[in-house]
């Protein structure tokens, strides 16, 4: 096609790309001189060894394969290179497989035959290889973003979020009324009240009780001060609080004979102290 040769055009490589990041296994003659570091596990190593037989996987000699594997592992171990446990498990299994293949199956032997074990290994190798081929074929497909493209400038669908406001006439009127009320200016003069300070109450109480050692009710002492209704509360509260303080200091005694009954007070006898 005429368009194929333009200079800035995209490159048109048709060769398969090796998507696998692991380097190709070493050449056949080197294989017995390397360790297992380049393999992804015993199955991977076995598959590589099998491929070296250069025949279809269905036609490989499993016996030869087992021997190669065992020889490989032996060599590595002879060179005192650490071998992961799973390689050794595989080696043990292959040794077993080898023995089953070499010794004809005795009648009445319930164990799987060597041929069956070999077929199983062959199946696993073929399946692994098939999955690798499949991965390669997938990766060599025209892929999105490489040979196939999506819309470069998508036009996002606009979703307009519209709020629908809810408010009732009542809400509206309530809002208005409360604001107007809030705005009303009112003159506020706090009423001044007579308040007995604790100190005053204490002084008065001490004076009233004097040296009297008779039980006298508090209201009787305060009778002169309780005339104005507005002052009653503060007079009672302050003198009561002060009386408790005087009790604490050991100056007077208080007693109440019944709940809500009158409070009686007297000067404490000094000889008790």
């Amino acid at each position, binding site marked *: 096609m*005429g*368009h194929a040769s*333009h*200079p*800035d*055009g995209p490159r048109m490589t048709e060769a398969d790309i090796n998507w696998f990041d692991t380097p190709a296994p070493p050449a056949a003659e080197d294989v017995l001189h390397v360790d297992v570091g380049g393999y992804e596990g015993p199955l991977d190593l076995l598959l590589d060894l099998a491929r070296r037989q250069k025949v279809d996987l269905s036609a490989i000699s499993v016996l030869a394969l087992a021997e190669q594997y065992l020889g490989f592992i032996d060599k590595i171990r002879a060179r005192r290179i650490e071998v992961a446990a799973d390689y050794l498990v595989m080696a043990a299994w292959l040794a077993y497989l080898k023995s089953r293949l070499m010794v004809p199956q005795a009648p009445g032997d319930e164990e799987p035959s060597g041929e069956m074990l070999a077929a199983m290994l062959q199946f696993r190798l073929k399946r692994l290889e098939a999955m690798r081929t499949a991965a390669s074929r997938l990766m060599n497909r025209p892929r999105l973003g490489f040979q196939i*493209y*999506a*819309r*470069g*400038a998508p*036009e996002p*669908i*606009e*979703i*307009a*979020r*519209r*709020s*629908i*406001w*809810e*408010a*009732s*006439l009542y*809400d*509206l*009127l*309530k*809002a*208005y*009324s*409360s*604001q*107007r*009320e*809030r*705005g*009303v*200016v*009112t003159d506020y003069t706090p009423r001044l009240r007579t308040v007995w300070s604790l100190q005053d109450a204490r002084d008065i109480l001490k004076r009233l009780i004097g040296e009297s050692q008779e039980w006298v009710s508090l209201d009787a002492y305060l009778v002169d001060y309780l005339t104005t209704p507005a002052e009653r509360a503060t007079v009672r509260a302050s003198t009561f609080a002060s009386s408790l303080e005087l009790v604490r200091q050991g100056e007077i005694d208080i007693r109440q004979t019944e709940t809500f009954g009158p409070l009686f007070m007297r000067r404490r006898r000094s000889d008790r102290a």
Partner: protein
Amino acid sequence: MSESVQADQSGEVLRRHLRILEALLFASQEPLRAVDMAPYLGEGVDIALLLTQLQQEYAHRGVNLVRRGEGWAFRTAEDLGLLLRREEHETRPLSRAALETLSIIAYHQPATRAEIEEVRGVATGKGTLDLLMEAGWVRMRGRRRTPGRPVTYGTTDAFLDHFGLESLSDLPGLDELKGAGLLSGRLPPDMQIPLPFDGALRDDEDPLDPSDPGDNEVEDEQT
């Protein structure tokens, strides 16, 4: 016969060129100029002609080939734009600030922002008025003929509609508000509830110029 073969071939080549342009324009993130596309076609190809043909082929489709300056791009057909815009509604209660502002505008209209703030006792955020205008309940009426020429606000027909009022005179007065228990008895005797004005323009109002940006200027000055 050789001529018809040639015609066939040129038809095929044309189709292929159109396909290449189609794919390029589709996949590109930006509009493409003819020079951007030329390398993908052979030499001596009349891209302008191809683009015109492609444009015609897409003229009645849901996607059109449009020209943007020197570039070309596929864009959703304009008449479908509205259809592809979806609206999602959500109901939300109006905030207290918005409700208060709205009620003041309703009773005191035409009211300036300063007047609203005087009644509310707090500054009214720009967002509140915007919201009320967006809701379609409040509009700018004009400008008061006083120093600073402040914008006057009023309510709209949609406002009446939403609150079930036939006209502004349906808004309850002082006695009715008291009767409904919305206003307490402890009010100064001289308190008045204004009668909202819903005429076109008051004597002291100037009409808004269509290009009048409203209160925006003021906002900018404040910040």
